[in-house]
C-alpha cells in the first residue's frame, strides 16, 4: 500500500470538513464537520505511525479522540444553552450580543 493513498483520503475528508464548517448553518452540523476534520487528522496520524513503525501515531490519535469527545461534550452543552435561550440553533441567529 502506498502511504499517499491514506494521506489523500485524509486530505479529501479534511476538505469536506472545511466545506461543512464554512457552509452549514446548524450548529450541530458545524460540530459534526469539525469531527470530520478531526477524523481526517487521525487517519494521517495513524498512517504515519504505521509508516514509521512507531506507536506515537496511535497514541496521538488516541489523544485526538479524547479531546474530540471533550469538545463535543462542551460544544453540545453550549448549543443546548443557546437553544434554551434563543429557541434556535441557527448560527446566523446567534447575534444577541451585538449592540
Amino acid at each position: 500500500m502506498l502511504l499517499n493513498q491514506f494521506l489523500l483520503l485524509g486530505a479529501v475528508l479534511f476538505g469536506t470538513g472545511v466545506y461543512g464548517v464554512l457552509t452549514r448553518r446548524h450548529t450541530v452540523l458545524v460540530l459534526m464537520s469539525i469531527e470530520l476534520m478531526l477524523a481526517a487528522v487521525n487517519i494521517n496520524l495513524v498512517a504515519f505511525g504505521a509508516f514509521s513503525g512507531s506507536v506515537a501515531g496511535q497514541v496521538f490519535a488516541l489523544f485526538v479522540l479524547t479531546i474530540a469527545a471533550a469538545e463535543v461534550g462542551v460544544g453540545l452543552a453550549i448549543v443546548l444553552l443557546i437553544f434554551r435561550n434563543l429557541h434556535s440553533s441557527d448560527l446566523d441567529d446567534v447575534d444577541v450580543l451585538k449592540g
Partner: protein
Amino acid sequence: MIAQNVVFGVLAAAMVLSAIGVVTTKNVVHAALYLVVVLAGGAGQFLLLGQEFVAWVQVLVYIGAVIVLFLFGIMLTRAPMQPKESLDNDLKWPGLVVAVALVGILGALLVDAFEDTEIELEAPTRTIEVTDAVFRTYIIPFEVVGILLLAALIGAVVLARKD
C-alpha cells in the same frame, strides 16, 4: 497486497461519499448517521494499517459515545428532523471553491512530497506496546488529557444545567 488495496478502495469510497453526505444532507439525523459511516470506515482503515487498539477505541468512543451524544443534542434542540429547505448558509459556492482548492493543494503537495512511498507493514501493533507508551513516555500528556476531560465534563454540566 491487492486484497488490501481493494478493501481500502471500498472503504475509502464509502467514507468519502458519506462525508459528502454529512456536509450536504438536508436532514440532521441523516448527517449524524453518515458520520457514523465515515468513522466506522476510519476504524476499518486503522485495522488495515494494523493499528488495532485505536481502531476499537474509535468504534467505542466515537460511534458508541460521541454519536449518541450528537443524537441527544439533535433531539434536545429540536433540530429539524424532516428535510428542511436548506441547512446551508449562502457561502455554498465560495465554500466549495475553497474546499476543492484546499484539497487540490494538499493533494498536490502530498503527491509531490511522498510520491510512491510504500508502507512496509510489520506485524500489527500490539496493545501492550500502545499502553506501554501511554503510561511511560506520554504519561504527562495522558494525565493532562484526563484533567481536560474532567474539566470538560464539569463544564458541560455547568453550562447545560437548568437554573
